[in-house]
């Protein structure tokens, strides 16, 4: 999912940073230190969970979980993902510094959208909650794939087909992520339902 260095044009890189800076500013402004600690710990969860191999057919995939982060953090998903991706670049050389802005935006923007679209569903019981969680997981991955594909396509016309292939390749991951997030939310609803009643 992360675009590596040397692929995107300076214009796309600059736009990525500008949009991420705006999102991060909004995220940090609305977050006091109490919520910032929660943001940090959830960013750590995102980092660790993204290393989990989930079997899918003949192979396995890594979970994205940007939707889940968006659900709990809202706009704070921007700084959380920025830091998590920076740490991935430092520890695993996954991504890089120049592409950090666009990679963060690709994941955080859909996460924030899902926060506003689906968080109210999670406060309701039964099928509505499960549907909301599934949609959050699936749509956030779809959104990230679309943003990544658009970034590639805008960078160079030679990447248009690569972008389309990337989108199609993410279809099974979308469905899997939707299922996993639905199962996670179902577990949280049984064990600590108050976490699903968002006040922000």
């Amino acid at each position, binding site marked *: 999912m*992360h*675009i*590596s*260095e*040397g*692929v995107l044009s*300076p214009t796309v*890189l600059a736009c990525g940073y500008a949009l991420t800076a705006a999102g*991060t500013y909004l995220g940090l402004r609305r977050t006091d*230190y*109490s919520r*910032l*600690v929660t943001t*940090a*710990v*959830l*960013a*750590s*969860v995102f*980092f*660790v*969970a993204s290393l*989990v191999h*989930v*079997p*899918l057919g003949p192979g*396995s995939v890594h979970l994205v979980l940007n939707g*889940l982060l968006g659900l*709990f953090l809202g706009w704070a998903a921007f*700084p*959380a993902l*920025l*830091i998590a991706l920076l*740490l991935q*670049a*430092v520890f*695993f*050389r*996954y991504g*890089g*510094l*120049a592409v950090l802005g666009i990679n963060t935006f690709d994941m955080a923007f859909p996460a924030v959208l899902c926060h506003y679209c689906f968080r109210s569903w999670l406060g309701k019981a039964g099928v509505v909650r499960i549907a909301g969680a599934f949609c959050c997981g699936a749509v956030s991955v779809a959104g990230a794939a679309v943003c990544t594909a658009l970034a590639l396509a805008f960078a160079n*016309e*030679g*990447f*248009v*087909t*690569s972008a389309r292939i990337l989108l199609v390749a993410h279809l099974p991951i979308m469905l899997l992520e939707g*299922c*996993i*997030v*639905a*199962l*996670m939310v*179902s*577990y*949280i609803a049984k*064990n*600590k339902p108050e*976490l699903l009643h968002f006040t922000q």
Partner: protein
Amino acid sequence: MSSTAMHQTDPRALLLVAGGAAFCLSCLQSLVVSGTGLALAAIFACVCAPDWRSLLKRLLLANLFVLFIWLTVPWTMPGTDILIIGPVHFSREGLLLAMGVTLKCNAILLIFLTLTADMGLLQMGCALQKLHMPVKLVFLLLFTYRYIHVIAEEWKKLQTAAALRGFMMQTSFHTYKTIGNMLGLTVINSITRSHRIYEAMLLRGFSGDFYLTTELKARRRDIIFVSSCFFVLACLLCADLYVTCCHV
């Protein structure tokens, strides 16, 4: 500049050069200049990198996306056919684009890996704070780093507990439900823990101002290092501009 000297360099200088190199090299359009950039980065890595084998291993991992580009671009980008294998037409433009990406990506990564190999997270946090990044962002960086290890350990314990009861990962609803439950538990524990961490901060008098005690002192050699690197990058950019204009 040996790896020991790199370790002694002000982390602000290292981050500025890493960031500057990433942006400047991303802007290059000419293959010749990109190749020159890669050669210079390789020489820099040879002189300064602490561990060549680890560097190469990380470089390989990072080239997975580049591999994706090689597998998709040369035969899908329209242009002058350079190779035809059955129904598949490889275009010159596609090959050149993939080559350019490969050269630039590896040049940027070699520099980034070399500069940050010995940098601790605390040093990075201090450097970012001194470079006027928002304090809350630095706070987030250091706290996230701190708790990655805690959560990773807890996750390992959950995996072990499941494995001890015969759990094996397969493409099945049982597997997804188990992973969902384990991740759900991790999220609950993490959010609960975060409240207690904040309480621990309050219990030690925290009242909204976050400080780091590590001082950074830029020396003349750090300024010379940054200036020299930026001079080289500027030369590469000028050369790229010249070569691109000549071809146009």
